[in-house]
């Protein structure tokens, strides 16, 4: 009796091994490009729309690594990525000026918003500027959840604290999640805390969050996304043609028009605004 079971078990296991060995996971062609991007493009679902289209049109296979802008830049600095789509202007400029990246082009923008509990304990509604609003949060010692992951959002947020002359590091009301935007919003919602979010992710998750948009519209909160190709002269292994194709695609009319309407069907408003210069033809060549 038990022998039959053992034999049965063994044969099931063998079949399992054979099945897994003769059906290796689908391998990509040689035309791979590694895209290092921010979590917001993935969490908002934009990359799921744009990338398949690009792959179909150009025949490349895109490996999207969704991490913070800071990490994406570091991958670029090691030549481990071919192209970056990120939102951290100051670092981007440094990255290009130090020769790691080339051909930085604006793709789209949205803005950051300051969200927090509906009761707004720090009373930031109606505050004149975002810097003031940040100062009020610090003064009232209301909990603030920071991404803490060197992402574009995180870098922007730290710049805002500095501009307001607020000491935030190590303060008891200042928490670092170390996670992506989506999860940071979840935490802020649970802890009835404030946080800085990009508009796209906030709108995407809004339905499930107990967070209200408390401050928006300051010029400082503008959030531009750029595409940068990693410098092929510096890193010979970089897929130069693929990176350029991707950059061209994002700047193309087709991609730009997709960005323009992305999210309208679900949220009644777009999540990003196209930012590529209108005259495409001249740039593509």
């Amino acid at each position, binding site marked *: 009796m*038990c022998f039959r*079971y*053992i034999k049965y*078990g*063994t044969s099931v*296991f063998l079949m*399992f*091994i054979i*099945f*897994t*060995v003769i*059906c*290796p*996971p*689908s*391998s*990509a062609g040689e035309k*791979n490009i*590694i895209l290092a991007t921010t*979590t917001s493009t*993935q*969490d908002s*679902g934009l990359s*799921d729309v744009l*990338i398949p289209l690009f792959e179909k049109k150009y025949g490349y*296979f*895109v*490996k*999207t*690594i*969704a991490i913070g802008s800071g990490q994406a830049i570091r991958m670029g600095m*090691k*030549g*481990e990525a071919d192209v970056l789509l990120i939102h951290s202007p100051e670092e981007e400029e440094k990255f290009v000026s130090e020769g790691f990246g080339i051909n930085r082009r604006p793709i789209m923008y949205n803005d950051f918003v300051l969200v927090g509990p509906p009761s707004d304990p720090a009373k930031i509604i109606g505050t004149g500027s975002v810097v003031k609003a940040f100062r009020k949060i610090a003064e009232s010692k209301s909990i603030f959840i920071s991404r803490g992951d060197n992402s574009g959002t995180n870098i922007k947020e730290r710049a805002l604290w500095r501009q307001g002359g607020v000491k935030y590091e190590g303060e008891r009301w200042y928490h670092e999640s170390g*996670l*992506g*935007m*989506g*999860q940071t919003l*979840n935490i802020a919602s649970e802890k009835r805390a404030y946080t800085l979010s990009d508009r796209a992710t906030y709108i*995407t*998750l809004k*339905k*499930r969050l107990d967070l209200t948009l408390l401050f928006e519209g300051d010029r400082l909160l503008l959030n531009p996304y750029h595409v940068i190709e990693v410098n092929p002269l510096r*890193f010979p*292994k970089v897929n130069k043609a693929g990176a350029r194709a991707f950059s061209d695609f994002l700047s193309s009319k087709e991609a730009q028009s997709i960005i323009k309407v992305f999210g309208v069907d679900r949220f009644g408003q777009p999540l990003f605004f196209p930012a590529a210069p209108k005259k495409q033809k001249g740039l593509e060549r």
Partner: protein
Amino acid sequence: MELILEGVLKAIKMLISLDREVLDITILSIKVSGIATAISVVIGVTTGTLIAINDFPGKKVALSLVNTAMGLPPVVVGLFVTIFLWRNGPFGFLGILYTPYAIIVAQAVIATPIVTGITVAAMQQLPKKLQLQILALGASRFQMAVILIKEAKLSLFAAVMAGFGGVISEIGASIMVGGNIKGYTRVLTTATVMETSKGNFDVAIALSIILFLLAYFINLILTYIQQKESGSR
């Protein structure tokens, strides 16, 4: 509460309707972890048997190394595999970082010590005189190893299951070396984390249910084996 209920209901719908994406992710997970386990079984059972049947100086050190490696944190493995597979790393020429093969490598590294450790333990559970008996029957050392593996078959099957269970539910290494690329290196665990952060709780719950069912299935087999074992001795 409403959210959970809604999520569970939608998840069940997805499972019943065999949602394409969920199905693909599940199949990829099973394939990747299955191959990784198969590799670890080949390496682990061989190494474990060699350690168990040979007396050599440093055997205790080797054993404690294996036992320590059994608890190797997946993120540590992920980190080192990433560093080794970087384009500019020592194995960069392979070009397999951010591919399923990288996940297979990392998971095999995680599972091999588990299989090795359980193999050694299984061999040591066999009667000590069994080796002498086999040699006295005229077996070569290789023939002896084959017989011992056959005798420890059930425990070794448990080792396989433990290895598979360990890697399919692992996330740290998979996300680091695979990159969670949609339709390519997105496995059950990495997808669950991502869908959670995206707020797609229904998909996350569906994936969790699959993961849970897989874990349950594995444990069911393990329990069954253990009872067979204890019933026969």
